[in-house]
C-alpha cells in the first residue's frame, strides 16, 4: 500500500512516499516556492520509485494552520488527486503533527511562528488538547507562554508517528478537504459566511 503525504504549511515543502508504514522516499524543498515546486516533486518521487500515480492508495494532507497560500496549494493538490484517483484522503493539522511527533513527560506547547505572532495549541503528554488551536500576536503570546515556556516542544516531524496517527483516523470526502486557517482576516473577523457561492 502506497501513501503520499503533502505538507505545504511551512517554509519547507515536504513530500513523503510511504510503503505501508515505512518511509519509502521523501523530499524537502526550502526554496519557498510551493506553487511551482510541489507538483514537480510529487512527479519526481513517483518516477524515481517507478510508481505510476494510479498506484497510489492513499493521500495524507497537512491542512494547516500555517501559510494561507501554502496550505491552499497542499489542500487543492491533495483533494484533486484523491478525487481523480478515487482513493481515500486523510488530513492532519500542522499543530497535531508536531505534538504527536515529539514525546514529552510533561504537557506540550506547540507554536508555529509567523511574522506577527504564532499559531499554537497546548496538549497533555499523551496529546489530548488542553487549549484549542489559537493564533496570538507577539504580545499576547509572551503573556500566554510565561508559565508554559518549559513545555514548549520542538517543531520536528516524525514521519512514522504521523503515519501511525493517520492510520487511526477516518478518510474524508475529498470535496470536504479544506485548509484550516485559525487566523481570520480583517474583512471577515468571525470567519463566518452568510452567503455561499452558487452555480450560474
Amino acid at each position, binding site marked *: 500500500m502506497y501513501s503520499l503525504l503533502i505538507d505545504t504549511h511551512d517554509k519547507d515543502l515536504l513530500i513523503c512516499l510511504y510503503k505501508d508504514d515505512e518511509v519509502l522516499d521523501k523530499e524537502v524543498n526550502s526554496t519557498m*516556492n510551493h*506553487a*511551482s*515546486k*510541489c*507538483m*514537480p516533486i*510529487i*512527479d519526481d518521487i513517483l518516477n524515481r520509485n517507478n510508481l505510476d*500515480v*494510479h498506484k497510489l492508495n492513499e493521500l495524507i494532507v497537512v491542512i494547516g494552520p500555517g501559510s*494561507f*497560500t501554502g496550505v*491552499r*496549494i497542499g*489542500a*487543492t*493538490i491533495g*483533494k*484533486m*488527486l484523491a*478525487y*481523480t*484517483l478515487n482513493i481515500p484522503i486523510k488530513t492532519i493539522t500542522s499543530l497535531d503533527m508536531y505534538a504527536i511527533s515529539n514525546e514529552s513527560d510533561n504537557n506540550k506547547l506547540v507554536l508555529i511562528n509567523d511574522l506577527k505572532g504564532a499559531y499554537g495549541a497546548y496538549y497533555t503528554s499523551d496529546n489530548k488538547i488542553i487549549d484549542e488551536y489559537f493564533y496570538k500576536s507577539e504580545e499576547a503570546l509572551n503573556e500566554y507562554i510565561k508559565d508554559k515556556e518549559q513545555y514548549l516542544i520542538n517543531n520536528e516531524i516524525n514521519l512514522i508517528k504521523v503515519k501511525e496517527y493517520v492510520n487511526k483516523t477516518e478518510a474524508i470526502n*475529498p*470535496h470536504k478537504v*479544506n*485548509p484550516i*486557517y485559525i487566523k481570520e*482576516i480583517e*474583512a*471577515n473577523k468571525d470567519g463566518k*459566511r*452568510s*452567503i*455561499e*457561492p*452558487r*452555480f*450560474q
Partner: protein
Amino acid sequence: MKDVYILGIESSCDETSMSIIKNGCEEIATTVLTQMDTHAEYGGVVPEIASRMHTENITIVLEDLLKKSNMTVDQVDAIAVTYAPGLLGSLLVGVEAAKVLSLVYNKPLIATHHIAGHIYANNLVKPIEFPSLALVVSGGHTELVLMEADYKFKVLGATKDDAIGEVYDKVARVLDLPYPGGPNVEKYAREGKHTYDLPIPMNNKDLEFSYSGLKSAVINIKHNAEQRGEEINKYDLARSFQDVAIDELIRKTKQALDEHKEVKGVIVAGGVSANSYLRDEMKKLCDEEHIDLCIPPMKYCTDNAAMIACAAYPKYLKGEFADLSLDAKSSLELY
C-alpha cells in the same frame, strides 16, 4: 482531422469555472460557480475569501462539469488554465488543479492568458477574421488591440490610469449603488437623462485612454452637492457618466478603424462588453463603417472557463505546452 477537446479552468477572480470545448469553438459543457453574492456583502471582491472559496469548490465544480458534459477527463486532449493575470491566490487554485489533471490523466497542460480568453470567446460565435481590432474592456483593462493572427497582438492604445470597469465600480460606490457596480450604474443610467456636465477624457488624437479625470469629476459633483446640502439625481449622474465613458470607447475605436483600413472585423471583449449601451453604440459604429462586429453573448462576457479552453486551442495546435512547474502571475501583458 481528429476532433480536439480541451478542458479549461478559470479561477482568476470570484468565479470558479470549468468547461469542455471542442475544436476551439464548440461548447460541450460549462460550469460556473460564482461567489458574487458573498463578496457583495463587502462591497467588492475580498481576495483571501475568494481564494478560500475556490479551494472549497474546485472538485465540486469538476464533478458538475463531468456530469453535465457526460465525458471523462480521459476523453479530453488537453488541460488549459488561466495562469495570469488576476488575484494570485485565486489563480493558484486553478493552476494546481490543472496540474493534477495533467499528471493523473497524462494530458498536455496549456497556460492561458485571461484577456486572450475574453478575446477568443468570440470564436464561440464565429471564427475571428484577421486582422481584427479588439476592444478589451474590463475591471483591469481598457485597450485597443490589433490582432494580425492567432496570438499576434499589437496594443494600439491602453488606459494611462484607471480601467473603465474600475471606474464604473467607483462611480457605483459614489452613487451608493450595491456591488457589482457596473451593471447597477447601467441600470440607473437607463432611467436617467444626460444633465450633468462632465469632461471628455483625453480629448486628443492618440489612442490612449484616461478615466481618472472623469472619475474625479463625478466624485466632485457628489461632494459639491453635499456641501450645498443638495441631493444629486443618481439616475441623471449615472447617465451622464455612462454617455461620456462609453462614447470615448466608441470615438477611439472609430479612430483606430480610420488608421487601420486593413481591419476586417471588430471584437469587443471583457466584462464591460456586457454593457448594453456599449453594445448598441458599437453596433451603430460598425454598421456605419460597414465592418463586421463580434461581441460574445452575455454569458461569455463575465469570467468563464469556456473562453479559456477556446484561447488554448491555437496553442494546442502549435504544441505550446506548459509543465508541472507552471506558476500563476498576478499581472502579465498580453503580448
